């Protein structure tokens, strides 16, 4: 093994992080090379010195500060007072059941009638968010062509771990990611480029677990493709034609 190569690997060798072949060849090189032996010693010494600094420990009060922040967080989410509720008499119970049935039937009818409206509304919202992102200086909050810095950026920002792939080789370079607000919830967005076109891929956690096949829709000259995979709902939107969106979907 050459000195140059060995120098790069000695640290990992000392940390016991090298696999079989590399480990054996670094070991034999270090034994035979005085310069690298000295380097290994230096690395070990520096490590010991740094480890000797020890941790900067958290202030004692920090745990209780965190607990009270979490309490506040819990209160925000479960903010309904619990009233003691007495069992009503049977007449009232029947009346209540009847009222509940009526209510349910109204809701179901209303749901059926308006669901197509809602789907329409969602499409419009997504196209609007897409256009808004293009009007701004930049459609992204975390820039990268490296999927490895975009994916962890979403940790703690959205409630699922998005599938982030760089598709440069396939002609869809990853520009980056951002957060957006669609359908009354915070959603993650991946931004891809196709030639001069920008594709926004909106993602949020699905309520139901089953996958849904891609569906294409058109709105204001934009194409939208929606599908559900592994519990995540995706909406890709762009002025690209539908076929190219489908290609992106098949790659994701």
């Amino acid at each position: 093994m050459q000195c140059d190569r060995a120098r790069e690997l000695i640290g990992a060798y000392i940390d016991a992080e090298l696999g079989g072949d590399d480990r054996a060849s670094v070991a034999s090189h270090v034994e035979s090379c005085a310069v690298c032996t000295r380097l290994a010693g230096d690395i070990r010494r520096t490590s010991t010195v740094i480890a000797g600094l020890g941790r900067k420990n958290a202030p004692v009060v920090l745990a209780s500060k965190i607990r009270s922040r979490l309490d506040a967080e819990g209160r925000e989410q479960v903010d309904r007072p619990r009233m003691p509720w007495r069992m009503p008499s049977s007449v009232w119970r029947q009346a209540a059941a009847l009222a509940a049935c009526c209510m349910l039937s109204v809701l179901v009818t209303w749901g059926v009638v308006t669901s197509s409206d809602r789907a329409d509304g969602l499409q419009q919202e997504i196209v609007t968010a897409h256009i808004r992102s293009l009007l701004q200086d930049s459609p992204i909050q975390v820039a990268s062509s490296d999927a490895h810095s975009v994916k962890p950026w979403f940790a703690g920002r959205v409630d699922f771990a998005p599938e982030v792939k760089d598709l440069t080789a396939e002609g869809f370079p990853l520009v980056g990611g951002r957060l957006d607000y669609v359908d009354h919830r915070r959603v993650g967005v991946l931004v891809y480029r196709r030639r001069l076109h920008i594709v926004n891929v909106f993602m949020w956690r699905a309520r139901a677990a089953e996958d849904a096949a891609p569906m294409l829709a058109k709105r204001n000259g934009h194409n939208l493709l929606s599908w559900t995979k592994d519990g995540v709902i995706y909406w890709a939107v762009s002025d690209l034609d539908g076929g190219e969106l489908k290609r992106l979907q098949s790659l994701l």
Partner: protein
Amino acid sequence: MERMEQRSSFERLTLPHLDAAFNLAFWLVRSDADAEDIVQDAYVRAFRGFHGFAGTDARPWLLAIVRNAAYRWLSNRRRSANVVSLDEAFGGPGNEPAEAQIVSEDPTPEAQLLGAVDRGLVRSAIAELSPIFREVIVLREIEGLAYREISRVTGAPIGTVMSRLARGRRELRKALGRMMDQDKPHAV
């Protein structure tokens, strides 16, 4: 009820790593008060995303969130152009009172042998590294994380972790050598 269980399992899994979280935040932003804010913020975020956490080892997961929060803080600070911290303005971490009292465990005999190297110098040398090298040094040398875990915290592939660590260590040795040379007249 379910909420309470979730809350208690969250605390059971994450609070043991509070010192690790604080240590990482402190080394990234190098201020006690800011590190405290960042860690609180990160715990709240972690709790919100806790139902998405499926693993058993919460440490890399939590540290990744702390790291995100710290980087967000750093980039906000850069963006607010009229706020320039002293150590940025003077380019040297040497004049940082916040770093003066780092708590540490009792030195091992080996560390005592090497005690000739001033702790202050070591801290300054680490502080001089840019954050992406500083974090791998802190995670490896102080926290003792395996490369795989560092990769999960930083989101960088293991090969990148390895090369960042090699370069961070190289720069650290250079800086220490330089500082000790400067210091010699006083030290001897």
